[in-house]
């Protein structure tokens, strides 16, 4: 069968990104032909400024070289712009006469710099700043001449001016508006920026209009301003804005406004023709930054692949100036206005200015100067529309990295030396990450994870990796709004959408869910299958069948795999209380099976390490103790102190309550591991403040705290409610955990879940509304009723093939 033909007009970042996304989804659907006006294959346009400044080379900013196109079987025409589109014959004709028929056409023609129509604009030495050719011309000019004038004090103009200054030229920036980067910065931040750029040797003339460029022998020699002032200039760079390239589309009769008009599926008014990037107008807006282009590329590719899922609904974009040593960031509506409030920090001496604009307790805009460490975090809050009422008092001071472990307490990526380790799990240094971002053209945390392994294990350095992305590629880095993050690459759907469908449509097996939800892969992947297995079991307890093949090995074998392929065994000791008989049996088992490691765990129990897999069922049988679920996303331990039975300070019997809680909740699976603690007095010896649910006995009852964490990121638990009796503790704990089980994303600990939904939501469902609390608790009891001990089942022979090797 002949394949459909896809022609792409424009070989920039938007068009090529769309092709990459398309090839991931449907590698064999189209014969693809690409026309590019430049003689270069696809390069990272946003890194032209570092090239101009001499910090990077052209080779380093190539994203897809010509070999890539050959490998994908794409026909590539370079230095050959398309001259016209023949919509009735469905073909395009290029400048050299080459014609190519299409079934689908993708317009990614980008934009062109605006040239001011002033006298002298045609002179030699007058350039725009858009592509490799412009950059090379500027570098060449900087070697021969000494005076440059940049017209336009926006993002691009300042990067050009800085680059030329780095190359030794005397540079003057002429700007029509009263302050620099007026579309991205407020006056205060712009003035601080101006001062620091002036310190680097740039000269500024603000609020001034250029009247003409004078020349000698056809070459520019000076810029004349309104009022008569004349500035010597052998090189004039115009950076006054960009204009979408719509001429080709308009000539073909496509509806255009400022850009080529597209709908939410990136389709133009001709249904066979799509458009992405700077050349399109979507809902009346055009975009000149790279992050929105990537969002468009994803949606457009999906429709080209005939999957038909996803809409582009516009982007909130952010700006970051790529001038080494100057940190500026802005996003959203930072000018404020009616119904907005501003939080301001201004320290001109220290070179720091931060402005946060709030509306209805949500962040709607921000300007950061000097300290942009938290830009990624603010941008995420902004895009997600997170309610910040509860963190308002410390919002200005950034995301608390308190207790983040594994990178020597460093929270500022910019100040770290290249040799310093960012990811303590995988031993990845800052230099390695920055190199990978530049050389492999990485744009997202996931990309960096795949290529370098940084933040791929425990994830505690994710914030640092985000900072490195932001400081290396500037505004091109846009953290994906968490609310829209798909489960994995097998689907476009979010965790919430998947869970809702499983509930609403009574999907009670993984294959059923995958079929109903149009999974792209026949049997998912190692990320989505465990999540789906948990979701169907949680939604349909005692009805859905567990799928052992969709569980990670630890949960499949009911023991923890170790680095040498052996396993560890942790029997349950309710509330951390044991007996001589249990200890004797443990000792005998250790001897009998020659178990090399015995260790007391942090959760008040005993870990037997180095058990051979085939010995597991017999070890469990000889131990004659319940499974401790130390291997599972499930209730682990309930840590206790000795409490009022022994302790001279104890006011409550914490041990008894801990045992009751553990007996009630053992065998409870959850989105992630769950740890509890009960202390008998406010001295809190059981460390209830860093547990998923922590209970502290006081004279008049029990205080319950939730969402604590003592691992990767130390997080103090938040107070939920105080109750009088142990029965009430059980009910509130059960209800909270059931809410977490029903609503959290798979692999989110309680702390992450609470951060997402907010404590108010938890209080409403678990504390304020007694009916809701009781229903939640009943649902948990229903789920746990009749749950059996997995070790007992396996001692009796269940899943025996798991433990028996085949011998020949």
């Amino acid at each position, binding site marked *: 069968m002949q394949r459909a033909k896809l022609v792409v007009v424009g070989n920039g970042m938007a068009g090529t990104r769309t092709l990459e996304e398309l090839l991931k989804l449907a590698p064999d659907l189209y014969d693809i032909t690409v026309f590019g006006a430049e003689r270069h294959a696809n390069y990272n346009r946003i890194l032209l400024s570092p090239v101009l400044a001499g910090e990077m080379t052209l080779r380093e900013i190539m994203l897809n070289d010509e070999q890539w196109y050959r490998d994908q079987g794409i026909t590539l025409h370079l230095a050959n712009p398309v001259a016209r589109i023949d919509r009735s014959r469905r073909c395009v004709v290029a400048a050299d006469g080459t014609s190519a028929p299409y079934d689908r056409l993708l317009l990614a023609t980008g934009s062109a710099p605006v040239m001011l129509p002033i006298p002298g604009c045609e002179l030699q030495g007058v350039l725009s700043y858009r592509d490799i050719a412009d950059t090379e011309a500027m570098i060449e000019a900087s070697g021969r001449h000494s005076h440059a004038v940049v017209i336009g004090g926006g993002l691009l103009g300042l990067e050009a001016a800085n680059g030329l200054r780095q190359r030794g030229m005397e540079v003057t920036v002429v700007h029509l508006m009263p302050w620099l980067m007026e579309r991205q910065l407020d006056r205060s931040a712009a003035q601080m920026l101006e001062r620091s750029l002036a310190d680097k040797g740039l000269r500024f003339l603000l609020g001034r209009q250029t009247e003409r460029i004078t020349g000698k022998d056809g070459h520019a020699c000076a810029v004349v301003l309104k009022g008569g002032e004349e500035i010597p200039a052998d090189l004039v760079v115009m950076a006054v804005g960009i204009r979408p390239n719509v001429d080709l589309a308009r000539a073909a009769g496509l509806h255009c406004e400022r850009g080529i008009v597209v709908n939410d599926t990136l389709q133009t008014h001709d249904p066979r023709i799509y458009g992405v990037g700077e050349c399109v107008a979507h809902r009346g807006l055009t975009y000149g930054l790279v992050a929105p282009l990537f969002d468009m590329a994803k949606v457009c590719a999906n429709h080209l692949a005939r999957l038909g899922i996803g809409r582009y609904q516009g982007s909130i974009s952010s700006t970051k100036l790529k001038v080494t040593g100057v940190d500026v960031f802005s996003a959203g509506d930072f000018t404020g206005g009616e119904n907005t409030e501003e939080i301001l920090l201004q320290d001109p001496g220290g070179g720091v200015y931060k402005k946060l604009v709030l509306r209805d307790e949500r962040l709607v805009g921000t300007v950061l100067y000097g300290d942009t460490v938290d830009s990624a975090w603010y941008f995420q809050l902004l895009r997600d529309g997170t309610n910040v009422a509860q963190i308002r008092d410390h919002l200005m001071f950034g995301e608390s990295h308190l207790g983040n472990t594994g990178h020597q307490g460093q929270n500022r990526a910019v100040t770290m030396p290249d040799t310093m380790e960012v990811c303590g799990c995988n031993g990845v240094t800052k230099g390695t990450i920055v190199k990978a971002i530049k050389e492999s053209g990485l744009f997202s945390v996931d990309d960096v994870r*795949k290529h370098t392994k940084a933040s*791929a294990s425990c994830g505690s350095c994710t914030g640092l990796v985000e900072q490195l992305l932001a400081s290396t590629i500037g505004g091109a880095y846009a953290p994906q709004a968490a609310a829209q993050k798909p489960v994995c690459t097998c689907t476009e759907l979010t965790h919430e959408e998947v869970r809702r469908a499983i509930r609403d449509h009574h999907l009670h097996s993984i294959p059923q869910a995958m079929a109903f939800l149009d999974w792209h892969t026949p*049997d998912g992947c190692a990320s989505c299958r465990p999540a789906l297995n948990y979701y169907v079991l949680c939604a349909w307890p005692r009805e859905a069948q567990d799928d052992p*093949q969709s*569980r990670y*090995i630890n949960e499949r074998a009911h023991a923890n*795999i170790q680095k040498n*392929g052996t396993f560890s065994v942790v029997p349950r000791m309710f509330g951390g209380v044991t007996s001589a008989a249990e200890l004797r049996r443990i000792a005998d088992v250790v001897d009998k099976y020659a178990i090399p490691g015995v260790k007391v765990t942090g959760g008040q129990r005993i870990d037997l390490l180095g058990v051979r897999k085939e010995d597991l069922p017999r070890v469990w049988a000889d131990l004659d103790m319940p499974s401790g679920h130390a291997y599972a996303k499930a209730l682990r331990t309930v840590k206790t102190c000795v409490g009022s039975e022994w302790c001279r300070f104890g006011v409550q019997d914490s041990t008894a309550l801990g045992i009751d809680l553990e007996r009630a909740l053992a065998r409870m699976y959850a989105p992630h591991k769950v740890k509890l603690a009960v202390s008998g007095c406010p001295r809190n010896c059981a460390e209830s403040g860093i547990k998923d649910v922590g209970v502290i006995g006081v004279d008049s009852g029990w205080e319950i705290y939730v969402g604590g964490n003592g691992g990767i990121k130390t997080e103090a638990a938040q107070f939920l409610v105080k109750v009088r009796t142990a029965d009430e503790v059980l009910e509130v704990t059960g209800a909270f955990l059931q809410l977490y089980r029903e609503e959290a994303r798979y692999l989110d600990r309680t702390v992450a879940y609470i951060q997402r939904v907010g404590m108010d939501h938890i209080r409403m469902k678990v504390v304020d509304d007694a009916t809701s609390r009781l229903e939640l608790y009943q649902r948990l009891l229903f789920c746990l009723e009749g749950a059996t001990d997995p070790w007992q089942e396996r001692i009796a022979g269940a899943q025996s093939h798991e433990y028996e090797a*085949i011998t*020949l």
Partner: protein
Amino acid sequence: MSATDSTLWNWQRVCDLKDLPPLGARVVSHAQGDIAVFRGAGEEVFALLDRCPHKGGPLSQGIVFGRHVSCPLHGWTIGLADGVAVAPDQGCTPGFEVRLDGGQVYLRLPALAAEPVA
């Protein structure tokens, strides 16, 4: 599969297909190292040395999906048909010929006294 020419390779019966769980694996003990025999969602079977090219993790214990397995130790993805790690990771695990005949799984193995497989 790259043992020396002098090695004798014999087809040996391993187990019934039904002994292999779909999207699962079994370990075959062998004098020269454990071999992981995998089964896809249907009746397709594969065999690799039970050792991840990264840090030697037992691939037989990983989650099987499509024609791949995810190593249980650090999550490398290894192709079942060729033993090659999915990019950007780099590495390869030796594979073995395996076939299905009348519901029985056969593995082509080096006869005793040959050099170690890898």
